[in-house]
Structures are given as structure tokens and as C-alpha cells.
């Protein structure tokens, strides 16, 4: 049975943050997960590779990238939107 997008994004975040998937809550911020700037860049790379999408992200100005990184839930929603846009 294939995982949902939500489950896959959480699994990627958990792996990067070296946490159990049960410790990655939807309302958590990346800082709360302990992800630094390099961890974020690796996370976005992993998401792009998993879903075959291009995430608009510039480390110089994450807020202006058009990809909402404010919480786990917002990242899942943004990934879902990018996958929908590709279809």
C-alpha cells in the first residue's frame, strides 16, 4: 500500500531531523524539529527527488520563495499543490 503525500513528507522530515515519524507533528516548525539551514536545503532536495517536482526556494530569502515553510502542515500543503500543478 503506497504512502500518502503527507506520510512521505513527514518521513523525509523525520529522517533529516533524526526523529521518529511519531515525533513530527503537523503544527511543528522546522526550528522545533531542529533543522538548520543546511538540513532545510537537504530536505527540499529529498522532496524534489521523491515527488519529481521543483520547489521554488532561495536560501537567501526563504520567506519570498513562494513555498510556505512555516510548519510541517504548510510544507505538506505546498508539496500537494506542486504535485497537483504538475498533473
Amino acid at each position, binding site marked *: 500500500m503506497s504512502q500518502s503525500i503527507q506520510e512521505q513528507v513527514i518521513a523525509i522530515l523525520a529522517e533529516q531531523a533524526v526523529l521518529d515519524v511519531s515525533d513530527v507533528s503537523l503544527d511543528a516548525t522546522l526550528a522545533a524539529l531542529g533543522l538548520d*539551514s*543546511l538540513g532545510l*536545503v537537504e530536505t527540499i*532536495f529529498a522532496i524534489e527527488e521523491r515527488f519529481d517536482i521543483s520547489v521554488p*526556494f*532561495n*536560501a*537567501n*530569502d526563504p520567506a519570498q520563495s513562494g513555498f510556505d515553510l512555516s510548519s510541517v502542515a504548510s510544507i505538506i500543503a505546498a508539496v500537494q499543490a506542486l504535485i497537483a500543478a504538475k498533473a
Partner: protein
Amino acid sequence: MRRVVITGAGTVNPLAQDVEGSFAALSEGRCAIAPLDLPDVERLAIKIGAQVQGWQAEAHFTRSEIALYDRFTQFALVAARQAVAQSGLVFAGDLAARSGVVLGTAGGGLTTQDDSYRTVYAEGKNRVHPFVVPRLMHNSAAAQISIAHDLQGPGFSVATACASSNHAMGLAFQMVRSGMAPVMLTGGAEAMLCFGGLKAWEGLRVMSPDGCRPFSANRNGMVMGEGAAVYVFEDHDHARARGAPVLAEVIGFAMGSDASDIVMPLPEGAARVMRAALADAGLPPDAVGYINAHGTGTAANDRSEVAAIRQVFGDHADRLLVSSTKSMHGHLIGAAGGVELLACLLALQGTVAPTISHQIADPECALDVVANVARRAEIEVVMSNAFAFGGMNAVLLLRRP
């Protein structure tokens, strides 16, 4: 200890293929950043850069020489030829035996590597050009300069990413100052603007898709350049004895490490090295009139660098002129400090090159960044900053001759 002077300069960079043309472009605030023209550019997310336009290797080298020279070596050799010609030096006898070359580069023959990998991986061939190794070696530019000018003394290359040139020039300064060599050719060369080189940088997500705007509130990353600059660092007494033209005196150098993070800069690390360079020159901070900033146009570097300048210079930071010429020629990575030393020489002649593409003041970068238009100023002492990934920092000080 001996005094060290610069008696020759040469360059190939995106603004011009000589020093005079580079001075003119820096004075005019010309921008060499443009859409990239290279194979597979449509597969890149970042499609701009500062390329050396209209480069004709055949105009400078024979066919057999070109077979041995990566693009970065070609740039370095032409720059060295110009510098030696300006100095008037002819290397022979004891001078040739003791003089040397130390060059900075971060990627070495990266274009050669990229082409070679494309041959075996993408094209599925089982044979590459026989000179891949002598072309791609990091020391090939320094070695070819030693061969071209019969420099039999110290010869090596320095790779400290974006600080490579300043480390190289600092070491050359120390070698001439100590009496180890009467003359050292030094500077840096880089040619990373190839598909594989750009792909690697893209991955880090620090490149701007639309321009290099150092110290501007709307800056959004760095833009890659390519090229070389080479200088003749000469024992002051040796230069005076032969009545050589003197472009500047090299008066101080320091290097040090943040020992903190592989990519994020630490203001205290940069400040420590600027202070150490001033101590090496025996100068107080207020002796400095112009700083050629590292000024990459990334959010992190510019904020950190300005904080470091404030820490070192205090109130004098408000009287200093600070500019980043990367806004014009892009970030030449291992050749950055070399090409940026041209702006330092120009400042000592009374013209401070601007930070172009400065659009919106940033309260976190509240210094006189010579926005958009060059400034006439009497500058006695200049500082050149280079702060590399790896937290490795190198700072030089020059004085008007």
C-alpha cells in the same frame, strides 16, 4: 623584514581582458552579468553569470599549448604575461632561480573534468583526451606560469574556495617580505562556468536568478563569474634599484578560521582577521580609507561582513568607503580577491569603484557602500576582504606608493 611592492598587474575578467579596460569598466560601474551562453543552459535553474566574452584562445596560444591548458590556465597565463610585461622584469640567472609563483584557484580545471565526465558517462565513450590530468590539476596554472617565465623558485597553488586569491597573495607577500624570494607572481584564476560547476552551486540554493545586489535590502544571492588576475610582488629595494614602476605597497596580511560552520559566516571570525591584518601592518583602524568588501550579495555574507566591519572600525566605519565590485564582475570564487585587488589599485589612484545594482538601503548594511556611482577620493590605505566557505578568511592591506 623587507618591504614589498606591486610592480605589475594583469587580468582577464568579465569586464575586460586587460587592466586598463578593467579600470575603465570599474570606474563607469559597468555590469558584466548577463544571460549565460553555454551548452545545456536550458537545463539550469540559474541562467545568468559573468562570462569572459569573446575569449579567443587561438589569439594567445599555439594549438599544442591549447591542448594542455584548461580555460582557467589560459586566463592565468595571459594575465601573467601582462603583469610581467608591465613590471619590465626579465627572469634569468639568480632572479629566475629564486623567483616563484603562487596562485589561488578553487575549482582548478573544472571545465576539463566536466568535459571528461560527459565523455565517459553521458556519451558512453571509453577513452578521454590524453591531457585531462595535466589540464585539470589545481597547480596547472601556476606550473604553466613557472614554465612560461622560467620561475624556478617556490611554486604552488592555494585552494581555499572564495578566499584562494587572498591567501595566495598573502603567502607571496610573506615570502618576499621574509627574503625567501625576490619576486613572486601571484593572484588567482577560475573558470567554473560550466554545466556541472553551475549545477553544483545551484544545489546549495544561494545563487540569484536575476542579479548580484550586494548590501541592497532586496539582494537574493550570488552570481558566478570567471577570469584571472596576476600581480608581480617584488622586493621594494630590488624594484627601486631598477627604477621599476610601483603600483602599490603591500603592507599587511592576516588569515584565520571561523572554526564554526562550513557555510554560515561568523562576524567575529572575520573581525579577528581584519584586526590581525591591521596589526601586521602596524596601523590603527582609522588609517583605512576604503574596503573592497567580500560582498557576495547573499543575505548571510553581507549582514555578517557589515557587522564585522562595525566591530573592527567602530565610529570610523561611518567615514570609510566600502564597495563590492562583485556587483559588476560577479563572484570569481578562487580568483575573486585577485580581480578585486584591481579595484584596490584603482582606489589608491583616487577612484573608488561603486557597488552597482544597489536599489534599497538595508538597515543591516548601513555603511557608505558607494552606491551605483564611482567616487573620487584621496585614499591612502585599502583593505581587501575575502571570506570563504569553510570559514577561512584572508585580508590584505595595500598603501599608495
